[in-house]
């Protein structure tokens, strides 16, 4: 075990997979000579050279499509978006090409590609740079969507994503790159996609949290423990396919659930999880499912307004107390 930041854990995963398989290459804006806008790709150009680690022009649609085409011809591209906000320009290739190629070719062309980069809110970067887009990508059959919340998950899941034969949208969290944690050293350490993780066991209320909301939910659970409420925190880790079974099992035990998410509430992943719980465990619920979501507004710049737009520990605590009928 080593203590690593999420940034370095991702770097290690990239390094190990580039070394393991010659058909893996990495491309994106500033990934090579600049060492990565967020330093996730630091040192990779030096180690693997310009054939495998490629700086692209600012041309998201173009290089995303190039990646999908390269995957059709047998390579395993890792395409970095400097942030997922820029992936919006590339959605045609992610959705119309990558997600559908296997199906519309009658199973002939698999697309083993990873689209990765930071998503969600950062620090005062305003409306166009602070978007949580997981519900967009999770909507489409053919894509897999992954959102890690710890350094070990980041490494293990990224390695699985690179080895997977399907297109994987891998959304890191911009604010979390510096978060530290224990990471196994074994180069064959992977975490399977589609498997939720119980980050904290409890018996009174289930909190489903992903990405940035996981550490906040864990802090909320600590505070609530002192208030006499035992919380179970579940991180789905993979949004598609979603391990709803693990969530439902927890709900059957606690009978109460709060879903914490950074994204907007409308048509969000939280809404989907809530609907699934209603369909699968309605009779076990002792209170309506409660969502704590990002504000339904474009992200503001001003620090105080930004803080109001993103769920925090206090709001998660209040939601748990609400579903537990404490207040």
């Amino acid at each position, binding site marked *: 075990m080593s203590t690593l930041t999420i940034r370095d854990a991702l770097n290690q995963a990239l390094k190990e997979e580039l070394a393991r398989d010659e058909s893996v*290459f990495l491309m994106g804006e500033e990934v090579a000579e600049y060492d990565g806008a967020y330093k996730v790709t630091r040192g990779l150009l030096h180690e693997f050279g310009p*054939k495998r680690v490629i700086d*692209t*022009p600012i*041309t998201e*649609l*173009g*290089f*995303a*499509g*190039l*990646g*999908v*085409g*390269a*995957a*059709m*011809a*047998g*390579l395993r591209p890792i395409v970095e978006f400097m942030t997922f906000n820029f992936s919006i320009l590339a959605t*045609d*290739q992610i959705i*119309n*090409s990558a997600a559908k*190629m*296997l*199906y*519309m*070719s*009658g*199973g*002939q*062309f*698999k*697309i*083993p590609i990873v689209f990765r980069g930071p998503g969600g809110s950062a620090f005062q970067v305003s409306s166009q740079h602070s978007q949580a887009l997981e519900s967009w990508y999770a909507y489409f*059959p*053919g894509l*897999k969507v992954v959102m890690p919340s710890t350094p070990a998950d980041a490494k293990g899941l990224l390695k699985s994503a690179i080895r*997977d*034969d*399907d297109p994987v949208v891998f959304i890191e969290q911009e604010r979390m790159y510096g978060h530290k944690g224990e990471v196994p050293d074994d180069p064959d350490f992977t975490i*399977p*996609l*589609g*498997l*939720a993780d119980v980050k904290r066991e409890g018996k009174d209320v289930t909190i489903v949290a992903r990405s940035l909301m996981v550490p906040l939910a864990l802090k909320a659970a600590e505070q609530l423990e002192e208030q006499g409420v035992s919380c179970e925190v579940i991180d789905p880790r*993979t949004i598609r*396919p*979603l*391990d*709803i*079974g*693990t969530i439902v099992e927890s709900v059957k035990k606690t009978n109460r659930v709060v879903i914490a998410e950074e994204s907007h509430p409308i048509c969000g992943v939280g809404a989907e999880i809530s609907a699934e719980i209603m369909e699968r465990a309605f009779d076990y619920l002792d209170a309506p499912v409660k969502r704590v979501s990002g504000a339904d507004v474009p992200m503001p710049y001003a620090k105080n307004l930004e803080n109001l737009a993103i769920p925090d520990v206090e709001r998660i605590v209040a939601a748990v107390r609400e579903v537990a009928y404490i207040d």
Partner: protein
Amino acid sequence: MSKQTAAPPSAAKAEEQQSSTGVMDAPPDVDSKKLKQERDEAKERQKDRLSKLSREQAIELYRQMLLIRRFEEKSAEAYVAGKIGGFCHLYIGQEAVGVGSISAIRKDDYVLASYREHGLALAKGMTARSIMAELFGKATGCSKGKGGSMHMFDKELGFLGGHAIVGGQIALATGTAFATKYQGTDQVTLCYFGEAAVNQGAFHESLNMAQLWKLPCIYICENNQYGMGTSLARAMSLSDISKKACAYEMASEFVDGMDVLAVREATLRAVERARKDYLPTLLEIRTYRFMGHSMSDPGNYRTRAEIEKYQERDPIKLFSATLLEEKVADEKTLEEIDRKVRKEVEDSLRFAEESPLPDPEELYTDVYANPIEPGRK
């Protein structure tokens, strides 16, 4: 760096003639004497080129063009009869582009196309049966009935699809060219798109990367002069498409798309550049579709006179005349080819009719190459 050839007079004239609205009742503008002169000039150019081919090669090109023509005629019939669903974009009039260019590459080279790809699939060696069955939505189709008219694929033959978002395949083809260079092979990629796709960002983003990174991709703009119902003149500020390569310092050529041999020769030059030096090329191949944009297109944006003018330059008629005059083939030989081709198309129709529909279970297959059962460690 950029190589330009002048547009043939017929093409230049065609552009002048495009009205801004393209209504059906525009006054006819057919100068039959001039048309004959143009046709004769085209034939002379074609005769020069014919000498570089063996008899077998020449006849094979003719056979392929005729196969596409007959196949598409049959597709239109089947569509009208309700046997083919969805959209159906025919290749009639453009046969020389696909046949001439694909005759310049190897079996292991890649082809990516737009949704007007039945003819290109045939030229790449896919069987009429597998394509017709796909049009019929049958399990025996080249994409198991899941793709339809716009999504024909054959991995074995290097036919990497039919893509139905205008310009999407241009970025994909840039990627296959990237991959073959990465893998150190000398394969090339041919990428087909209509002139309307040139206005998409994907075109410009792709050409920039292809020249910047020296990728062996040949971008073939099939300029049939209409993006659905919108004429080139109404959609593009600089309508001389081959010139756009200059913006990327890419080699380009303007090619007469009604002459199968002109297309073949231009593609051969581009293929050599791609194989030897990994250099991309933009070919603007001026052609014309004799049918509507799709089967549901009433075509009231262009005049009958304009269509007839181009039918005078029908690539199949032109080539058969050249073959006959140069005594490469006689009437009997050409008739025999037509008979065989019709039989092949009839057979494909029968095959498609008799083939089974996809099994209902196929609905959920091929969504993922590695399907994951969530929650499974």
